[in-house]
């Protein structure tokens, strides 16, 4: 297991470097001159050049990447001229809010998806299975931002049960109330995918020979299902890492609609105002969080499923 952990962490490092390179390159090839916002409109070419030199904008790309990466490793992602704040400060504040939202959404969506998938898989072909299949297909197809708008219209506009936006963690009741709508709109797709994967896994495992053996041994149906679940859970775990990533990425939409002060809203505002330093920083941090979560899910899976452990160690 220790070897496996070292191996997996070792494999994640080049991925992390690659991700940072992609983020850097994407924000460097952007049309328009990066110093435009820093110099007065009537600046002479010489003054412009001075700013460019100061920022190292004329250095070769690899050199610029290296400087940027070294700064980033020290927690310096640049300074937002529009906001007059350090990008890192903005991100630290926002990261926690996004993490809370993504985590609650993931737990809610995966738990509900497991339950629905289990019900559907164990009642294959019955009415309940069909209903759940339709619901999860719909869940897969509904854009989170559309669902968010419907929920807003119904529960914040019409019924006024929940606040229409913002986050407040002052007391538990308002915290939960402010979480309900964003969590619902973000986690429906997680629930749908988890339900589909769980159902497929259960149907698959029920067809395996060992299930017949268990029945022949005289195990109760409940015990048989327990064995089936243990075997069917592995693909669910595989997708759950991707799910959390989707929630982190999708946070841009959900947070924008609910004015949730996380990285997604930060990213949206930065895109709208073409504040590329912030776009770069936020993209990098979200992507890195995703890589690390996938790594943790991988290790968790190896811990639970000896087949996975055997295959790679």
């Amino acid at each position, binding site marked *: 297991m220790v070897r496996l952990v070292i191996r997996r962490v070792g494999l994640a490092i080049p991925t992390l470097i*690659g991700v940072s390179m992609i983020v850097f390159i994407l924000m460097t090839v*952007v049309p328009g001159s990066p110093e435009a916002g820093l110099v007065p409109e009537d600046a002479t070419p010489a003054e412009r050049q001075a700013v460019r030199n100061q920022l190292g904008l004329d250095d070769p790309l690899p050199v610029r990447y290296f400087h940027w990466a070294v700064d980033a490793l020290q927690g310096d992602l640049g300074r937002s001229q529009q906001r007059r704040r350090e990008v890192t400060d903005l991100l630290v504040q926002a990261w926690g809010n996004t993490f809370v939202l993504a985590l609650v959404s993931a737990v809610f969506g995966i738990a509900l998806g497991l339950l629905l998938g289990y019900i559907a898989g164990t009642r294959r072909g019955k009415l309940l299975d069909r209903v759940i299949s339709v619901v999860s297909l*719909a869940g897969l*197809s509904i854009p989170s931002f559309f669902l968010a708008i419907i929920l807003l219209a119904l529960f914040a506009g019409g019924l006024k049960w929940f606040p229409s936006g913002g986050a407040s963690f002052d007391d538990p009741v308002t915290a939960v109330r402010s979480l309900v709508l964003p969590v619902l709109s973000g986690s429906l797709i997680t629930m749908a995918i988890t339900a589909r994967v769980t159902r497929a896994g259960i149907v698959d495992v029920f067809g395996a020979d060992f299930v017949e053996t268990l029945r022949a041994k005289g195990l109760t149906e409940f015990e048989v299902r327990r064995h089936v679940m243990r075997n069917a859970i592995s693909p669910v775990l595989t997708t759950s890492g991707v799910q959390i990533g989707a929630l982190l990425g999708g946070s841009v939409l959900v947070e924008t609609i609910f004015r949730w002060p996380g990285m997604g809203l930060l990213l949206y505002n930065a895109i709208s105002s073409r504040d590329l330093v912030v776009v770069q920083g936020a993209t990098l941090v979200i992507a890195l969080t995703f890589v690390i979560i996938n790594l943790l899910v991988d290790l968790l899976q190896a811990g639970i499923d000896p087949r996975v452990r055997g295959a790679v160690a």
Partner: protein
Amino acid sequence: MSQAVIPVLLPQGFGSEVSSAERQAAAEQRDAWNAVDQSVETQSFWVGTGKRFLRNKTGVVAAAIVLLLAAASVLAPVLTPYDPLLGEPTDRLQNLGSSGHLLGTDEQGRDMLARVLYGGRLSLAAGFIPTVGAAIIGTVIGVTSGMLRGVVGTVLMRFMDMLYAFPAILLAIAVGSSLGPGLSNTIIAVTIVFIPPVARVAEQATRRVVVQEFIEAAHLSGASRWRIARTQILPNVLNDIIVYASGLVGVAMIIAASLSFLGLGSPPPAPEWGYMLNSLRGSLNTTPLVTIVPGFFIFLTSVAFNMASDALREAMDSRL
């Protein structure tokens, strides 16, 4: 065919002295043989898939919805007299079913039906083109690295893994904000997002095929790598890729709509569904039904694509 059958049906030694009656008997037998033969006639894979698909009611309905939406958006100028870009300021935010405006009007008094129809062109293109593009590019990359292994294959797949390490929407947003707003940039962004997963599917399928004996046979018969890729590997990996890619169209639509929702799609006043939904958000409390219209169409199209894709997958799996 007949030459192959007659020697089997006729006893040895008949040779030249076959009478006409015997000839006829043989012909009858041959016809009978062929008649039996017909009932077990091999069916092309795609004909079988088509037949199985047509038996699936959900799939047919879904495909019909997609075709209908595509036709309606192509025929938009015939179906509606309104201009999707010009509004009547006095007719702002009319509700659903108000006189002359079946789907109401938006915050600038533009007819919603016209905007939805014309917008369908953009949204369907943004769902379809990236999927096809990524399927082609991803297949080339996946088959290449599956066949070549070695340095080239490893480098290609490592690079794919790095792109795959981004959450899909985030990568699309990053590429989109790097390229700037616009439909073609949205299409490029979504294509880039889908290349790595398609390449992965293609690479895994290629690895499975490339170790089989018939590939070795092709090598021994002197076929070039390019020829093997084209005639031996591609037909065997294409099914996996088509099944996988068909599931991406709905997702592509949603990602493209998300980009246009965030203002990274076609610049206003182009009637892209995602952008329409965002610009109508402010009218949610006055005319909620009108606000929901563009979202409903994104949802409808995406559901239809997903259902059609599920049906296609089932139809292509001939074991079912």
